[in-house]
């Protein structure tokens, strides 16, 4: 009986994110003119899934007490790449998809190499690599354009059995195939350990550097999957700077809403997924309440500000002021 209590304690953040999402989505759907229909769910899912992928990428890196400010740019880059190569015959399309995923993986690996083996700070490194990735995206698509295998796109943005959005299914599949094995592997445990206490992890001879490298690489992969889906939804590739920046920012919001501590060591990518979906739902609330869409950026910004400030409550318990300083 007591086992589930511990499971709850460990998954606190994720469960809270799930609850937030359910609440927000319920409010959204009940105020939507069309109500709780399959179409409404499908549109919401398609938009939410994009952020969910990028949020998962960010979650992985944040767990190791790092940060990746280039995820939005990897997202854009893979989108532009996909608009070139994910076309044609089924074989060509399949190869194109593999190419896009490899590109995402490569971007993540570059981040990882520089941060870990170059021993540079993640913030500045990923701002700089983000510029590089954006530049490449701009090279690929100076102007919006391109296309994508339409049959595949229609399928992936549609519904199964007229009800379940395929994008959600894809999300679940990615979580099962990428996140679950990683989180249960020795590398995954080392990633958590590094974020929790790098010193103790070192003393226990855990593979810290390899785990961190794997984290950044997988983050690139996940952001790449997001970019791929963006292509399926928009049928084009566009090197939109504002969009890339927004996704980076929102991925951090999603991570914080998802119960993942920015100091690392705790939380789950699944929480980030719910955080992303909740964040999207919050944003869409303005729409259903007939509020001017002009207020959306401000609203989202304030939500982010409140979310990151919540952690300050822990400070009340500090008894030795030297603990303020790492």
């Amino acid at each position, binding site marked *: 009986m007591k086992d589930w209590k511990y499971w709850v304690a460990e998954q606190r953040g994720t469960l809270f994110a799930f609850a937030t999402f359910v609440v927000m989505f319920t409010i959204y759907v009940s105020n939507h003119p069309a109500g709780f229909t399959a179409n409404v769910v499908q549109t919401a899912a398609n938009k939410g899934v994009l952020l969910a992928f990028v949020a998962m990428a960010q979650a992985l890196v944040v767990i190791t007490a790092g940060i990746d400010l280039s995820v939005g740019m990897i997202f854009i880059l893979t989108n532009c790449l996909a608009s070139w190569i994910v076309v044609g015959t089924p074989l060509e399309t399949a190869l194109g998809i593999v190419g896009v995923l490899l590109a995402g993986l490569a971007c993540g690996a570059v981040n990882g190499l520089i941060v870990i083996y170059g021993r540079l700070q993640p913030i500045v490194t990923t701002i700089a690599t983000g510029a590089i990735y954006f530049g490449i995206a701009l090279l690929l698509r100076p102007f919006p354009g391109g296309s994508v295998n339409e049959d595949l796109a229609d399928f992936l943005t549609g519904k199964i059995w007229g009800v379940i959005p395929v994008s959600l299914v894809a999300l679940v599949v990615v979580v099962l195939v990428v996140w679950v094995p990683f989180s249960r592997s020795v590398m995954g445990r080392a990633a958590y350990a590094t974020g929790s206490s790098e010193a103790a992890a070192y003393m226990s001879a855990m593979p810290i550097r390899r785990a961190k490298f794997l984290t950044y690489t997988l983050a690139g992969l996940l952001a790449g999957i997001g970019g791929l889906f963006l292509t399926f939804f928009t049928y084009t590739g566009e090197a939109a700077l504002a969009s890339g920046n927004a996704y980076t920012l929102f991925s951090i919001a999603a991570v914080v809403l998802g119960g993942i501590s920015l100091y690392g060591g705790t939380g789950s990518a699944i929480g980030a997924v719910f955080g992303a979906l909740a964040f999207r739902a919050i944003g869409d609330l303005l729409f259903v309440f007939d509020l001017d869409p002009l207020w959306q950026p401000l609203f989202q*910004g304030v939500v982010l500000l409140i979310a990151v400030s919540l952690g300050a409550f822990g400070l009340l318990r500090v008894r030795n002021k030297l603990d303020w300083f790492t």
Partner: protein
Amino acid sequence: MSEISPMGRQEAGRQGLWRRIDPAVATAFGCIVLLLLLGSLYSSNFLHLDYLLLQLKVASFLGVIATGAMLVILLGQIDLSAPWTITTGAMMSCAAAAYGPAGVALAIPFGILCGVLIGIVNGIGVAYLRIPAMIITLATNAVAQGLMVVYTGGFSPQDEATEAMRYIATGFLIPGVPNAVLVWLVVGAGAVFLLTRTSFGRAVYGIGNSERAAYLSGIDTRRILVIAFAITGGLAAFGGVLLAGYSSKAAQSMGDVYLLPAIAAVVLGGTSILGGRGSYLGTVAGAILITLLQSILSVMQIPEAGRQVIYGIVIVIMLLLYGRAPASR
């Protein structure tokens, strides 16, 4: 058993002037010279006085913003709210101009004040709520953006910059010398004074080295952090005011293109990203270097895409040379 380590003896051995020159700053200036020479191979215009003064003018805008960025980086923090603080400064100063003669007169201070307020929020978040700087500044950036979007209705604002704004950005108080450069000179002199001759400046370097040791030495580290972020916000907003003066109006997302260059200018000038080390001269060199780089790339007609890539690569390489963390054990 000697009292001074080999490192100390080495330092002491570099006599007089040589001892004062930071190798990073020297390298940055060296790169400037190199770029000019390379550029002159492409076109002899690169060494004309007119061109150089123009570059200095453009560098001034970046320089003012980078001054603020340097202050925060010296503390071991970072300010990612520069983009929309710049834009807010620009838009709000132009907006004030629409409120009659009082508005026109107060336009510039008002714009700067908006930036200071954003900076104070950042400072309180970092110092009192102990929120990591990168996160809180990303959040305030988003809020500032939200506010500006609401204010402008999503369109480019129609307000015009005031005479004063246009004068400080494009005028010529001294014949031949662009006013913007003079402004940068004044801001820079103020920054150098603050950093090297005041107890505030000493405390900034101390906190950047170790907030813990600074606290135990009786420094009010929290207050200093808030003040520093406030100054940075004010400088970013002032940069926006200058930019608005330059183009006679403000524009959406005008600040976005200054974030990376500002941080790059600071880091390339030898200021450690970890804090506690760096001289303003380096930031000056960094700002000029970045501006030259941008200018040369555009003259060579390298598309924006290529510029971004080269940017990012240059920064990573310079960081690998200067900013690496020590190998553990």
